[in-house]
């Protein structure tokens, strides 16, 4: 029996069109011609991946097997059958694929592709199920254009977030260059989702000292960029300038967060010397403005309780985690697997109310059985 049967919010599900043609249909004629090119399929909507090859495991780059032959993540029926209706799903944040369009080399094309995704999203998935919420696709390589797009569609009631994937400017996301995006997001009442992706931009997603070569290393190091984005946002005062802004760092893992909080605080004198924006302790900004999605949960290889021990070293960690599956990617965490990783008393927060806090939702009331669990550290 699942440890938690109450309403679930999943903040990272990757939905897709059945084929790229669905998105192309939303492009202006001039860009439909661009995609058609020589008629032999030599133009992709998706940019180049910089992994250097995906490794030798069969199906390692394939998403969840779609038993009806559809592109994984594109079938509403399968998503309901495989996930949403198998568990007590209350709300979902659909995060497209990985925000990869920002890595398209051609900025004019990137603008149009993101517009097309947003229009398609509103016409399709966001109208198909009351549980679906989603993020605004933006070309973050042109922050002013991104801001325009946020203002254009961000008023839609089901759009709750702005998706930042690869950082197309080669700067971490706190850099002042990106601030027009935050300004527009706050104006429209949206939060920020940061998601990793192995897309090719100089110095943007390459890991420290050129690490992350190949799929296994990349998977193990995908958390690095998230750490840098958090530090950068603090250094550049994103949360001083935009105090209503919250950021969900998705699919970067969770176990590096304690170390990051402590190391930022260790260096606060230095950070304050270099930046006028660090008014509070860095860890305080993290507690108030940052959440992490739980997938891929770094289950301990040693002792079953190891992860909980590590996370409990930070007081209030239970407020910083939002459950996610990453459906349909082959690295996903099933809800029942994720439930086993945390103390029972954390589950109502991790699986529901922390996400409600980010998106300004009123959580559904918990039954008395779960209310008594809340606060337990078993």
């Amino acid at each position, binding site marked *: 029996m699942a440890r938690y049967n109450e309403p679930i919010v999943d903040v990272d599900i990757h939905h897709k069109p059945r084929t790229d043609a669905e998105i192309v249909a939303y492009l202006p004629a001039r860009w439909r011609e661009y995609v058609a090119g020589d008629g032999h399929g030599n133009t992709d909507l998706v940019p180049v991946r910089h992994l250097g090859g995906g490794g030798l495991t*069969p*199906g390692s780059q394939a998403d*969840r097997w779609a*038993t009806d032959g559809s592109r994984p993540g594109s079938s509403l029926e399968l998503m309901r059958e495989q996930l949403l209706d198998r568990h007590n799903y209350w709300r979902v944040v659909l995060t497209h694929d990985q925000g990869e369009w920002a890595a398209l080399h051609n900025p004019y094309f990137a603008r149009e592709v993101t517009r097309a995704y947003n229009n398609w999203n509103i016409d399709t998935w966001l109208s198909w199920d009351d549980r679906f919420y989603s993020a605004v696709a933006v070309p973050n390589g042109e922050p002013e254009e991104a801001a325009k797009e946020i203002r254009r569609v961000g008023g839609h009631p089901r759009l709750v977030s702005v998706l930042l994937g690869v950082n197309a400017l080669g700067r971490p996301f706190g850099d002042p260059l990106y601030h027009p995006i935050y300004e527009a997001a706050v104006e429209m009442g949206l939060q920020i989702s940061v998601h990793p992706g192995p897309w090719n931009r100089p110095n943007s997603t390459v890991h420290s000292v050129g690490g992350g070569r190949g799929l296994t290393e990349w998977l193990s190091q995908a958390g690095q960029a998230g750490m840098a984005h958090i530090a950068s946002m603090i250094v550049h005062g994103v949360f001083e300038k935009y105090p209503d802004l919250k950021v969900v760092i998705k699919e970067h893992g969770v176990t590096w967060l304690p170390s990051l909080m402590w190391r930022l605080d260790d260096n606060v004198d230095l950070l304050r010397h270099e930046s006028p924006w660090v008014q509070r302790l860095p860890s305080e900004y993290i507690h108030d403005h940052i959440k992490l999605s739980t997938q891929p949960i770094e289950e301990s290889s040693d002792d079953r309780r190891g992860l909980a021990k590590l996370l409990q070293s930070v007081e209030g960690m239970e407020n910083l985690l939002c459950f996610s599956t990453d459906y349909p990617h082959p690295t*996903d*965490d099933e809800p*029942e697997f994720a439930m086993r990783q945390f103390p029972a008393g954390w589950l109502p927060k991790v699986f529901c109310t922390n996400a409600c806090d980010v998106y300004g939702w009123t959580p559904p009331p918990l039954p008395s059985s779960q209310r008594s669990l809340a606060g337990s550290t078993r």
Partner: protein
Amino acid sequence: MYVDAAATADVPETGPLVVQVARREIVLVRWDGQVYALRNICPHQHQSFESGVVRGQFDSVAVGEIDAAEPGRAIIACPWHRWQFDLATGSCLADASYRVRSYPTKVEGDRVLIDIGGSGRRA
């Protein structure tokens, strides 16, 4: 105790077949003329092996080199997270602390039988 699992002809050459045997879901795999039977629950996140990839197992005697495995050795990769399990023993190649229950099998006539109380060996 051997119980009937499936028609031999129903076990495909190229992929797994999930059957119900004595109230358990079993995945049957044909490889190199043998039929293997594993419990259809991946020990990682308890999902089904249905549609998992089956292929020969490789060996490596030196870093950077791949050698062919002995004939007959094969794995099934769980379609959910690609963990690979030895068809004969059910052991996870990457981490032997994870194992799928495997069952002895035999073929009688045109039927595959599995020893629902046994472990490890295959027909």
